[in-house]
């Protein structure tokens, strides 16, 4: 069953009197018990999608979507309290940079007690509530693998290392027993062994408690070790979508290929110290977005047709948006091109 379904989500931001499409027809869906990776470079709008789902965007930004539904309920038509209820109980978000997301002036224990929903505390008298909450905090923090729980609850954010804060964020997100966890770059700047711990924690949660995860990151190594399916985002457009294994083996879109090639760990045949394949240039800024396919100016396969925005096409559970995809036979390719021109 599909939990979260996003189709053609467009987000427009006004900049110097002009409306800029920060997200352009992004489609994404998350099924039950699925770990989906959302990959893209910084500035590609990954975090904007997270904010759009959680409803934390500034009100002056214009969101339009064919579908933005949670279990069939339209999130965009909902009033604030209904939406907050869903965000409180069903969807949990871990924001980028735990140290910045946590309150620096309150001890972590206090923050944790505040995040526990009232329904989970069934004690008879009010004076039992605090110890019950502490019990829950203790159990949750131990579950995510924090060693010195007492010390953690009695500390401020600045007193703890990054990885403990990250685990604390995960524990705080999981306390309301959500169905979907949105993790926005949870392994950024971490060393390998800590990263491994966080990833295996996500994996076991997915396995044991049937938690669905939307894993937003640009760390391909981390993604390849846990995700089932992948959505590649470039400059606010989804370029490719499909099961991780097949996308990794045969990327259709030139950008996905460049992304996969950028991790030398995936290419054991590569000779040490040989140059890596890289696309020229950098990701365009919002003020200077190219028309049509936004990869156009950087793409090695770009042709005249690329000034028209490619329509999404589907082959074997995989979706891509490109006029001249890789790994697809020539005749099929030419048919696709004609279609593209007619549109």
């Amino acid at each position: 069953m599909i939990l979260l379904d996003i189709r053609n989500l467009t987000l427009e931001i006004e900049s110097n009197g002009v409306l800029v499409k920060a997200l352009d027809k992004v489609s994404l869906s998350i099924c039950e018990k699925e770990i989906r990776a959302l990959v893209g470079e910084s500035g590609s709008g990954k975090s904007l999608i997270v904010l759009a789902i959680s409803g934390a965007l500034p009100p002056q930004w214009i969101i339009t979507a064919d579908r933005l539904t949670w279990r069939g309920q339209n999130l965009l038509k909902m009033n604030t309290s209904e939406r907050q209820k869903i965000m409180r109980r069903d969807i949990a978000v871990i924001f980028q940079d735990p140290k910045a997301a946590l309150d620096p002036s309150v001890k972590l224990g206090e923050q944790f007690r505040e995040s526990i929903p009232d329904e989970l505390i069934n004690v008879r008298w009010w004076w039992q509530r605090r110890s019950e909450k502490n019990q829950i905090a203790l159990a949750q923090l131990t579950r995510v693998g924090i060693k010195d729980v007492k010390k953690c609850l009695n500390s401020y954010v600045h007193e703890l290392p990054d990885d403990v804060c990250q685990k604390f964020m995960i524990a705080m997100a999981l306390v309301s027993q959500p169905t979907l966890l949105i993790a926005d770059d949870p392994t950024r700047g971490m060393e390998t062994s800590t990263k491994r711990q966080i990833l295996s924690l996500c994996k076991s949660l997915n396995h044991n408690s049937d938690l669905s995860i939307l894993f937003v990151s640009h760390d391909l190594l981390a993604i390849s070790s846990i995700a089932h399916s992948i959505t590649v985002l470039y400059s606010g457009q989804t370029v490719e979508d499909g099961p991780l294994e097949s996308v990794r083996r045969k990327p259709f879109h030139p950008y996905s290929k460049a992304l996969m090639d950028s991790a030398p760990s995936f290419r054991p045949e590569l000779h040490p110290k040989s140059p890596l394949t890289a696309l020229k240039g950098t990701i365009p800024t919002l003020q200077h977005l190219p028309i049509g396919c936004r990869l156009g100016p950087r793409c090695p396969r770009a042709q005249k047709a690329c000034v028209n925005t490619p329509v999404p096409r589907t082959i074997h559970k995989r979706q891509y948006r490109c006029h001249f995809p890789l790994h697809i036979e020539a005749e099929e390719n030419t048919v696709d091109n004609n279609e593209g021109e007619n549109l």
Partner: protein
Amino acid sequence: MSLLSIRNLYYDNAPAWYTLNKKDIFYLGPVNFDVHEGETFSIIGSNNSGKSLLGKLITGAVPKSAGEVLINGEPLDNTNRANSVRMVFSHSSQSLNPGISVGRMLEEPLLLNTTLSPSERFDKIRDTLRLVGLMPDHYYFYKHMLSDGQQQRVALARALILDPKVVVADEPFAALDPSVRSQTVNLLLKLQAELGLAFIFISHNLGIVRHISDRTLVMHNGEVVENSPTQTLFADPQHEASKHLIHAHLAMLKV
């Protein structure tokens, strides 16, 4: 004969004898290693293992407690340090001054360390900008006008402008996106081939370390636990700490 040799380098931040609260003293060393010309030397290790500190000790950004840093057999001191060993700091975007233009940022080391005339300095800066793949026009740019990758290149230009023999780079790729990261890796490899630079890399990203480095040093709690050729280390790590790191990395590769 090696280009840079580190002999019995020690560091500790022990407070003076009259300090009452004597806890959290960090000891580093002894460190011994040699770096040859055109070689890339990587330093890996877990958090708080003293990787960045070792980098700063080599460049002299933090004064060492004991031991020697030799460049071509000569001890490194304030007279020859700036011209031979330069550093690229982690978070290069934060290490650039937002208040002055790129040109002035690059001119400062020349003013302090050379006797070039203004026009020679200008030419030198333009050449260096071109060397790292920027345009001479970037002379007049300010930090906020550049993208992440370009800022990284400016930080590299600032390290290269005095024609050093060794460049110490602390996490140069941590903040970069995959495609820009590949570009920077290619740039470093190209510069190394052209100028015969020796690089000392401090990094978390073992995939990149494996790709670019010739030798790798593993640090654990301020001690050097392993120093071997990169391919040997990744194939067969000896010490517990290096096993831990490398197995975690390889386990992520398996799907």
